[in-house]
């Protein structure tokens, strides 16, 4: 029988199993030891593996992420935690100019098996410097795989995959689905997780729910919101298909296209900033393929409307797309004038 785990438990179990298997794996970061990671991603690991393999660091992200790069280039497999993704600004040079580019600049002559993990997301009023998603920022820069799980099962398999990958992987977990005892979370993210190790390949989106009328392309915590929205929409007679991207680099364009070809309607539900980010990229996938996608309505995007995340609850709830916003956007999509004829149909 499989057990239910929170996403935090799933992540730390994946790390523990890989650490047991492979002595080259170790963990570095702020408060990853006694504290077990601020978001419990390394909970219990210090007791199991000791402080030589679960290393608390100074607040020196450039130095310890850079040290991870050096150790990885030497064949070790560091897992480095950047506590909140929002702190990337103090260490982005090590991340994007080195971790991400060294393999390429070496013409493929080195490996860089490193996992950089960080907490993302808002919804609990942690304001402008502690609530961002920013996955699109990493995804825009070549050389990093970017993994953004929505639930415990995926998190374990994707983390094991990440640790075994010889390339740098950025693993971003949304705080609001970790199943922490001190933050309300979406229960759908806590699910059955096999005890035995398993991996989930990167670049394969998951159809969370099949549907006929509207495709919602989404990821991370927003998947859980989309599920709630879909239930509400189903009651109103609107059949929603949910695509959970799971990884944004690589991006599973085929699954997106297949779903939108079927439903003819696309809603992108994203917790990152609206402009120049994830939602634009997904829109482009469609816009570049309008000869084979018959859209019944223009695509729609939900995302943070290009403002920093405000602290005050009513403001934050307004800027981060909520279940109700997904419902309203899906309804509006379905209500858009029909039928429409796509480029594709006119070619026939």
């Amino acid at each position, binding site marked *: 029988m499989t057990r239910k785990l929170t996403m935090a438990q799933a992540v730390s179990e994946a790390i523990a199993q890989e650490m047991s298997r492979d002595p080259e794996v170790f963990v570095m970061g702020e408060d990853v030891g006694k*504290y077990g990671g601020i978001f419990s991603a390394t909970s219990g690991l210090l007791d199991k593996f000791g402080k030589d393999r679960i290393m*608390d660091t*100074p607040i020196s992200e450039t130095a310890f992420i850079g040290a991870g790069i050096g150790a990885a280039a030497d064949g070790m497999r560091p897992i480095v935690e950047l506590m909140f993704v929002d702190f990337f600004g103090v260490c982005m040079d090590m991340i994007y100019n080195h971790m991400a580019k060294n393999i390429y600049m070496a013409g493929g002559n080195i490996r860089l098996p490193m996992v950089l993990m960080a907490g993302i997301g808002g919804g609990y*009023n*942690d*304001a*402008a410097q502690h609530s961002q998603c920013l996955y699109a920022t990493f995804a825009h820069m070549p050389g990093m795989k970017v993994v953004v799980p929505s639930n415990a099962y995926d998190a374990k398999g994707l983390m094991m995959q990440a640790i075994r990958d010889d390339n740098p992987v950025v693993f971003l977990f949304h705080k609001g689905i970790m199943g922490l*005892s*001190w*933050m309300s979370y979406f229960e759908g993210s806590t699910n059955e997780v096999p005890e035995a190790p398993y991996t989930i390949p990167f670049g394969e989106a998951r159809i969370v729910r099949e549907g006929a009328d509207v495709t919602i392309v989404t990821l991370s915590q927003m998947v859980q919101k989309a599920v709630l929205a879909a239930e509400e929409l189903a009651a109103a007679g609107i059949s929603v298909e949910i695509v959970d991207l799971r990884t944004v680099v690589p991006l599973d364009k085929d699954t997106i296209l297949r779903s939108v070809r079927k439903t003819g309607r696309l809603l992108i539900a994203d917790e990152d900033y609206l402009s120049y980010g994830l939602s634009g990229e997904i829109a482009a996938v469609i816009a570049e393929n309008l000869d084979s996608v018959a859209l019944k309505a223009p695509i729609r995007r939900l995302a943070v409307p290009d403002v920093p995340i405000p602290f005050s609850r009513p403001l934050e709830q307004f800027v981060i797309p909520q279940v109700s916003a997904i419902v309203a956007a899906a309804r509006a999509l379905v209500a858009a004038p029909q039928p429409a004829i796509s480029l594709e149909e006119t070619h026939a």
Partner: protein
Amino acid sequence: MTPSNAQLLWMYQTMVEIRDYEETMAKVYLEGKLPPNVQKGLAFDIGAGPVPGEMHLAAGQEPVAVGVCAHLRIDDTVVGAHRPHHFAIAKGVPLNEMTAEMFGKDTGLGRGKGGHMHLFDPAHKFSCSGIVGASMPPACGAALAAKKRGTDAVAVAFFGEGATNQGAFHESMNLAALWKLPVIFVCEDNKYAISVEKSVSTSIEWNSDRAVAYGMPGIGVAENDAVAVFKAAATAVARARSGAGPTLIEVKTDRYLGHFQGDPETYRPKGETATLRKNDPIPRLGAQLRELGLLDDDADKALRKAARDRVAAAYDFARKSPYPKPEDALLHVFI
């Protein structure tokens, strides 16, 4: 330089007010966050209640704030970090608007947009940031502006001992020393950066010893004591005002509460805070005042009541203030 009677009284009364403010917040913060009001299974819900989000309180660290700010004028700049209330209060930031900000109200310093780690009061030249180490570069900038304009205003950057291992510390110290900026760097060594002890983060014992790396004076204050801080700051502020350049001060202080409210503090030796509290700097300064004849029971009571009233009024103001309209979230990205 020893503090005048007025300065001693101001420091005492301000410490009392800060402590009351922080302890009140510790209580208010818990409203709505505990079972049975929260999602089933949770011990605590950080996002619930009238003051949601992280909350870093400074009870125990009052001497650093008052000992330094006793020397400051309204045109001097203070930049704090993620644990900013004691500095804000000592710098004169109005309690009402500050508290309203932490409640996310429209009357707050930032109309509810900033929250407790992001208090901006341009009138009192106070600001802070939730990013460790981020207080230092902007403080250099304020000092640079003062220097360019030929005023004798100074700037103070406050930060924790954990922040001294952030690159921004080093870059700012060098820049300030190089350009002889009127800035005072004040490090609060409260022994922890969240759960990480100083010995686990820092290769030497006194950060003030790092000042030599910049040709800058460094002053270590070994006691969590307002007068001791006052004296160190007197030298540093005078040096800055005279145009001689920056100083780095480190104060050994104590954090009585968790890193943030809700911190399980399992990393702390049992009984540690109880021991620390025995050396509480507030009653200690009170006793000194009494010895000097500046305080008696009645005056103390009155002063404490006055502080309590001001604090209570601020929380009341915050509670009664309206929230901003949701769509106001779209305003103020640019002005």
